[in-house]
């Protein structure tokens, strides 16, 4: 750089986007570089005289500016800890640290460039053929090859971003903010549509921005009109990544919140207008990747946007007016244009030569001309990505030497305008776009009316949208353009992947005779540019090699995303809402150790869980069971629903009674369990497992809505409408008596497995269930959620002299294991059918029908599947870890599903699934502990280890 900070900076240009009053300074491979606000990283470097910005992927050839846009294959750089930054797009900023990617020892002298000398060994298919064998060596190959790839480095210390996502519902979404996109937006907005105008560059205007004085005047006018329409929202530095069913579009905003932070917008557009313009195509010839070989648009962007002189002595190959305009621009700013090869008159470029940049160019007549800049203007690629995703198959026009949308295949809700649709003057293009914008607005209004008409709850629309007549869209002219793809020498087709025309011909010679096949064999169009510069040339080279036409060869398929997107933007913020019970403030104040249980945060314990459990057995305990699923069921057909969902019988449940029930799925596998109580003639309250609350609600609704829509049942989820707590222990009745009004709590009046409603602690409409998950005398109280904390606190205050202590989920798990109650999903799994869970007593196969009945009938007949059993290790001090295997010789014959040390029995207790033949009481089995030790354990007569007769809970 030799200290020159503005070697190539031109005097002010009419359309320049740099602010000379605001200098910025950053470092490039450790050296300071100065530019101006508005510069891209690469325009600032080019102004400072830099020409080489990266090394190519395979051969490590020096690469410079080609397109001077986001899609510039040679301008990927590392910025701080961010790899693969598109340096010709990313704005220069004060203090950023920019380095070239994967060059060693330096960008200028890259040792890996020896690959270029060995290039004839690195042709297409080289990797596949060379590194295939031996297969075990691939990891070693890969780690070496990875060092040759020109990608940046990822830093593990990078801050994890959690960008928000946004949803947008524009009437008309316009992809492309050039003159056509702007004109379409203005006309659509004037027709009453809400418009989202999405532009990839940092400002609206497209090619007008680097155009003539007349172009700049049109740009100023359009910009003013867009700004004056409140119905237009403009997103710059944003790209439509893809179009999906129903005109859903993923929009990537690259700069959000004033920082280089990506944000994803999920847009549902009623009409999509595709107006991306055209991408200039490189020409294929020897040396076409040398720094100093540039597209005409790159030259014009450098001069007119960034006031950077692209070179000193230029040769220009032009086939169109844009090339001619580049010649004029070059001459205007003092570049010596030593030769113009006009392709329309037979001009051509044979080869460019030089080492770190162009030194000379050989032209069609064989003369060699010394220069440092070679500009090509040989035609355009239509970026049809969004159209491909809409079901369109672009068709090739030999006259125009580019692809056009197939209007017949475009869906109703997609329109095209601008360069992708045709040529013409700026006036013709904006005129076409204005008609397209109006028609897009009309179609959007019609869609909106149809959506409203299809929504029974919506207010009727003002109109149907059908009364407005179709806006005629004029045809755009199509200019003749010579077909120029690959010249007479071998050059690069895909600059990102270092694929040459020779590689593609080799692929064809090996039998990969179509564009899609040759693409996969050579990786052409599969690099970071994803075909934007190289697709048409790839097809053209393959076509020439096979002797087919371009139309016959077909094109490769553009797939989303159109540009790279960070995983952070796709992932967005994680929404993981959690639920707390109304008693959470008390839990917090009393040292509750939190347990994540599904969507809930519950107290696992307050102190010593075993002591909490023992207190329940000796005195009385209270646990917050609010997460238990609760469904309020009303209607005359509730018994039918219960009989269908549960495996046991429900027809004769009397008012005031509670029954335990188990649900199986249609495959007979245990789905959920809980109790249901009958509160009134047609009023039931069902409880489900905590984790099954949402599932069972939908399960019940599914059966009601799809199989039995004639049943009169209302299902209302009331899980969070009630705060639930279980008071358990020998002193439970004495405590409940102190706080309850109007409920006779005597064992005779309110026995085990009954339900009452009444007032607790002054709170009306509470539900009391006398049930016993813990195996003690216990009452489960469901109180209106707003009073939960009050009732909880009252019970603790009133129970102080009775020895009450709160207990957590862990103590409850100990207590229920002592009682042998299984937990669905812990002691059962996705294969555990009803009889395997020991539900022989509950499953009523004499019922006409219930969910899963046939499978359970067959299981009963076959006696198949494992059995859940109570199990006690012979050594009472050993607690085999849950999921420990039960072995027989070398075979697995079961596993421990639950295990704890019982504070009541002072010994280890388990539930286990074992093969049916081992389920007999007294059977001795062998448990393998995680450390490999084998211990003996005995199968018990029943699941319950404590009080198997259940006397304690019936007192």
């Amino acid at each position, binding site marked *: 750089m030799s200290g020159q900070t503005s070697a190539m900076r031109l005097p002010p240009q009419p359309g320049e986007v740099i602010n000379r009053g605001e200098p910025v300074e950053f470092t490039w491979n450790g050296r300071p570089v100065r530019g101006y606000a508005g510069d891209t990283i690469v325009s600032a470097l080019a102004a400072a005289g830099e020409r080489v910005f990266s090394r190519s992927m395979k051969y490590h050839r020096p690469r410079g500016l080609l397109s001077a846009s986001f899609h510039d294959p040679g301008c990927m750089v590392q910025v701080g800890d961010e790899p693969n930054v598109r340096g010709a797009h990313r704005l220069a900023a004060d203090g950023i640290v920019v380095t070239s990617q994967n060059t060693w020892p330096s960008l200028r002298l890259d040792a890996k460039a020896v690959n270029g000398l060995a290039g004839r060994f690195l042709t297409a298919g080289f990797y596949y053929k060379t590194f295939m064998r031996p297969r075990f060596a691939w990891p070693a190959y890969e780690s070496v090859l990875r060092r040759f790839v020109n990608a940046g480095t990822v830093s593990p210390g990078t801050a994890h971003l959690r960008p928000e996502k946004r949803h947008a519902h524009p009437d008309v979404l316009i992809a492309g903010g050039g003159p056509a996109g702007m004109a379409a937006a203005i006309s659509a907005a004037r027709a009453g549509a809400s418009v989202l105008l999405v532009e990839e560059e940092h400002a609206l205007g497209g090619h007008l921005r680097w155009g003539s004085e007349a172009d700049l005047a049109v740009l100023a006018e359009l910009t003013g009109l867009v700004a004056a329409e409140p119905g237009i929202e403009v997103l710059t530095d944003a790209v439509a990544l893809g179009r999906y*069913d*129903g*005109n859903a579009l993923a929009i990537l905003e690259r700069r959000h919140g004033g920082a280089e932070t990506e944000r994803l917008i999920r847009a549902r557009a009623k009409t999509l207008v595709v107006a991306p313009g055209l991408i200039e195509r490189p020409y294929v010839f020897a040396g076409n990747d040398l720094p100093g070989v540039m597209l005409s648009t790159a030259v014009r962007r450098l001069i007119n946007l960034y006031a950077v002189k692209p070179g000193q002595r230029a040769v220009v190959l032009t086939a169109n007016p844009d090339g001619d305009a580049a010649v004029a621009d070059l001459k205007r700013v003092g570049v010596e244009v030593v030769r113009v090869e006009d392709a329309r008159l037979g001009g051509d470029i044979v080869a460019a030569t030089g080492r770190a940049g162009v030194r000379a160019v050989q032209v069609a007549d064989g003369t060699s001309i010394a220069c440092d800049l070679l500009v090509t203007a040989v035609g355009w690629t239509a970026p049809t990505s969004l159209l491909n995703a809409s079901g369109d198959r672009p068709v090739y026009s030999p006259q125009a030497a580019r692809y056009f949308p197939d209007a017949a295949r475009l*869906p109703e809700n997609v329109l095209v305008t601008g360069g992708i649709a045709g040529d013409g003057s700026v006036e013709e293009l904006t005129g076409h776009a204005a008609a397209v914008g109006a028609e897009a607005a009309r179609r959007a209004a019609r869609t909106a009316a149809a959506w*409203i008409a299809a929504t029974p709850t919506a207010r009727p629309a003002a109109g149907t949208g059908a009364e407005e007549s179709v806006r005629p869209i004029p045809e755009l002219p199509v200019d003749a353009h010579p077909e120029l793809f690959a010249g007479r020498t071998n050059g690069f087709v895909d600059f990102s992947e270092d694929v040459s025309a020779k590689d593609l011909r080799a692929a064809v010679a090996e039998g990969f005779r179509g564009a899609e096949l040759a693409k996969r064999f050579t990786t052409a169009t599969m690099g970071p540019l994803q075909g934007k510069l190289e697709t048409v040339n790839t097809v053209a080279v393959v076509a020439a090699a096979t002797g087919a036409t371009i139309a016959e060869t077909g094109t490769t398929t553009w797939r989303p995303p159109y540009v790279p997107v960070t995983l952070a933007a796709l992932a967005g913020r994680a929404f993981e809402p959690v639920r707390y019970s109304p008693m959470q403030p008390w839990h917090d104040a009393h040292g509750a150790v939190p347990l994540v249980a599904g969507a809930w945060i519950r107290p696992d314990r307050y102190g010593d869980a075993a002591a909490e459990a023992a207190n329940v057995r000796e005195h009385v305990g209270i646990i917050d069971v609010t997460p238990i699923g609760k469904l309020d069921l009303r209607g005359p057909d509730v018994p039918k629903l219960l009989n269908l969902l549960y495996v046991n019988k429900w027809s004769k449940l009397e008012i005031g009674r509670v029954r335990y029930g188990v649900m199986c799925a249609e495959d007979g596998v245990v789905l959920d369990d809980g109790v249901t109580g009958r509160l009134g003639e047609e009023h039931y309250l069902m409880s489900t497992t905590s984790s099954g609350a949402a599932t069972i609600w939908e399960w019940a609704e*599914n059966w009601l*809505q*799809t199989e039995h829509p004639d049943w009169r049942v*209302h299902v209302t989820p009331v899980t969070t409408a009630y705060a639930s707590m279980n008071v358990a222990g020998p002193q439970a009745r004495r405590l409940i008596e102190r706080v309850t009004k109007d409920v006779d709590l005597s064992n005779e009046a309110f026995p085990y497995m009954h339900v009452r409603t009444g007032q607790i602690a002054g709170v009306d409409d509470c539900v009391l269930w006398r049930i016993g998950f813990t195996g003690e005398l216990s009452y489960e109280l469901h109180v209106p959620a707003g009073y939960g904390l009050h009732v909880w606190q009252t019970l603790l205050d009133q129970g102080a002299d009775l020895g009450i202590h709160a207990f957590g989920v862990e103590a409850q798990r100990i207590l229920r294991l002592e009682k042998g109650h299984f937990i669905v999903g812990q002691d059962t799994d996705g294969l555990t059918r009803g009889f395997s869970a020991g539900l022989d007593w509950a499953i009523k196969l004499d019922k006409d029908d219930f969910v899963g009945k046939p499978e359970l009938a067959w299981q009963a007949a076959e006696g198949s599947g494992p059995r859940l059993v109570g199990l006690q290790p012979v050594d009472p001090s050993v607690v085999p870890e849950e999921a420990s295997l039960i072995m027989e010789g070398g075979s697995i014959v079961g596993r421990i599903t639950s295990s704890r040390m019982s504070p009541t029995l002072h010994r280890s207790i388990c539930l286990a699934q074992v093969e049916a033949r081992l389920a007999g009481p007294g059977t001795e089995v062998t448990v393998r502990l995680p450390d490999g030790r084998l211990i003996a354990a005995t199968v018990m007569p029943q699941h319950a280890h404590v009080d198997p007769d259940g006397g304690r809970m019936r007192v």
Partner: protein
Amino acid sequence: MILLPCPWCGPRAATEFAHIGEVSVRPDPGSATPAQWRGYLYLRANPCGWTSETWYHRMGCRRFIKVERHTETNEVRSATAAGVAEVPGTGAGMTEIPDATAGARAGGAEIPAGGPAR
């Protein structure tokens, strides 16, 4: 992201729905053979073409709906309450649904082919 024409809520993004699966007829549990029952449990036609499937408007009205969808084009030609499938056109089941808006769709009127988006 296809739009599904919910008979109660109008066209909504498919992300609001849970896809329950192909509509499968439940065999008579009293007489079904294991082969018939397991066919009902596990076998799906998975056609390339028109299929009837159940969707659940989980993020909306929480109704189960039956949707006729073309699996290749995602075109939807009808969307009705799930429970009225057996007696098309009669509105069986519909009148029983205690829903204020059900009357607007009584009779299982079909959404126009292709839905309003096209």
